């Protein structure tokens, strides 16, 4: 028996997936404390498992509509961050596929995917997982956490 490798979810209308070992926990209705002077997609700070957790609206950060569901808490080894998503479908053991965007010259990442460093959509690898008729694109969490756009939470003009 093989361990599940990806968590499937939806944020901002996009079917996404992240590696299961990158997720520490999934929270439901996590209380948030808004932080003044931050961007709208930065929802605020929450307390999870006794630790301070900054939560980001992944759909809004990806330029889509705002998400309103559960919060994915990333593993502390990867970084202290939480992402608000719409729906968590579950875990999947399916293998990844390479989408057509691979030929676009993207940089290959972990698991055979590619990571684009240009804009929010650059954190979406061309690797996908087919589950229940949906193609979940795997998010490059390392690239995302290192992205300047992600790190720049200060609101414009502040």
């Amino acid at each position, binding site marked *: *028996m093989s*361990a*599940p*490798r990806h*968590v499937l979810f939806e944020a901002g209308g996009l079917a996404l997936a992240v590696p*299961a*070992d990158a*997720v*520490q*926990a*999934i*929270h*439901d209705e996590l209380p948030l404390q808004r932080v003044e002077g931050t961007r709208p997609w930065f929802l605020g700070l929450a307390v999870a498992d006794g630790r301070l957790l900054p939560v980001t609206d992944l759909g809004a950060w990806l330029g889509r509509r705002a998400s309103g569901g*559960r919060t994915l808490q990333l*593993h502390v080894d990867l970084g202290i961050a939480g992402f608000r998503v719409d729906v*968590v479908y*579950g*875990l999947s053991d399916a293998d990844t596929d390479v989408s057509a965007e691979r030929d676009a010259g993207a940089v290959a990442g972990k698991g055979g995917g590619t990571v684009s460093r240009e804009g929010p959509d650059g954190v979406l690898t061309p690797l996908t997982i087919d589950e229940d008729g949906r193609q979940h694109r795997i998010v490059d969490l390392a690239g995302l956490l290192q992205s300047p756009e992600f790190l720049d939470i200060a609101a414009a003009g502040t």
Partner: protein
Amino acid sequence: MNGARTGEDGRGGWRRLASRFLLGLTLCALVLSLAVLQRAASVVETRLTGSAGVVAPGAGTGQGTDQGAGAAEGADAETNATANVGPIVTLDGAIARALGAAGLTLSRLALVCLALAALATALAWWLALDSTRRREHRARLDDGRTRREQAAILSLLDEIAPLASGDLRVRATVSEAMTGALADAFNHAVGELRWLVGTIDGSAVRVGQAVTESRESARRLVGACAVQAREIHRSSNYLASMSETMAQLSSHATESARIATVSVGEAEAGGQAIQESVQRLSRIRDEAELATRLMQRLAENANAIDERVETIRDVARRTDLLALNTTIRAAASAASAFEDADMTADDTFMDGTQSSRGRSASGDLSRLSDEVTRLADLLGGAARDIASLSRTIRQDADDTVRAMDETNRELASGLAQAEQASGSLESIESVSRELQELVREMAEKTLRQSGVVRQLSTNMGVINGITSDTSDEVQATAGALDALNELALELRDGVADFRLPPPARAADGVDGTTEVAANRAVTRAATRSSVRAVDHG
């Protein structure tokens, strides 16, 4: 002349009265003388028969000087005579007492009586002679008067002779003669006769005109009687038809009354049925309200189930979340175990048993996660099913409640309509009862009216007969009028021979004869025309 005649008659009367007085006086004297003589004779006879103390009449008579003695003797004689003779003696006694009262003797009284008798006789003779002379003179006067009167009468006869031929224009001359009064009376009588003839002629003309008008009226009356009889006959037929119609109407009214009675019964039955329906509807309404309340409670229970389902969902979600986290932990543990295994393969110092234990714990956690996930799925599925069922139940309950509300409204409306129908049926029943009574009364009245109409039809027949009789009577009256007209004509013919003086318009050249003839011609023509008209009518 009359005054002279009156004076002459007055003088003749005086003479007759005087002669009669004298004659009466003479007769009285004679009677008295005879009585005295008879007294004297009776006295003498008494004395001759030998009664003593009786004085002879001659002695008494001769001794007139002794009036007192004579009177005494006379009185004694009278007393005796009265006792012996009776009534004569009584008269004598009376005379003797009268003479005694007058102081006269019987002899003197006899002389006076004789003298008076002689005087009266002489006066009577003279009166008789005078009367004879006067009678002769009167006879001569009467003879002349008779001749004058005869002449006047002949003249009067000559004047009134045309009257015999009907000429009323004659007029007698009124003169001083004895016939003057006759002429005056004759003229007055002729005037009256002239007025009478004129009146008769005018009356005959007016009678003719009246007869003509009466004949015309009779003709119209006959026509009217005919029309009346025809109309009465027609009305009688109408009345007969009306009587039949009213009889049919009465029959129909009776049938209507029977139907109204049935209608009343049906209305009563309908009212009872509607009352029962109202009661049933009331029960159904109560049951429907109970069902509605139950359905509302069911909906409320469904809501409670939804709340419980929400709790189950929350549990399922939490379970799912727990399963996810467990799975993630298991995956993380498995990944850690693989990494440890790789490291063990690379590091010879690691114990293979620990790696195997780590993989076993990760597998158990993964199975536990899978089991929790399945439970969460089952719980979620059950919650969804329950939610679906609850939603369905609530939806059905809501639909049922709405349907029951609609049913309640319909029931309330139906109940109101049923109560209204019940009230209407009660009104119908009341009206039907009144209608039944009215129809019954109408049937009775119609029946009575039918009898009245039949009686009226019979009376119309009687009236028709009376009209026919009236027509006959009018015909007879017309005949009587004809006879009356003939009588008027005969009356006019009777006075036609009389000639009247021209009236005031005699200057127009129309004399009375012509006018009477013209009136008679008009009367005859009018009578003939009216007769023809009546005959044609």
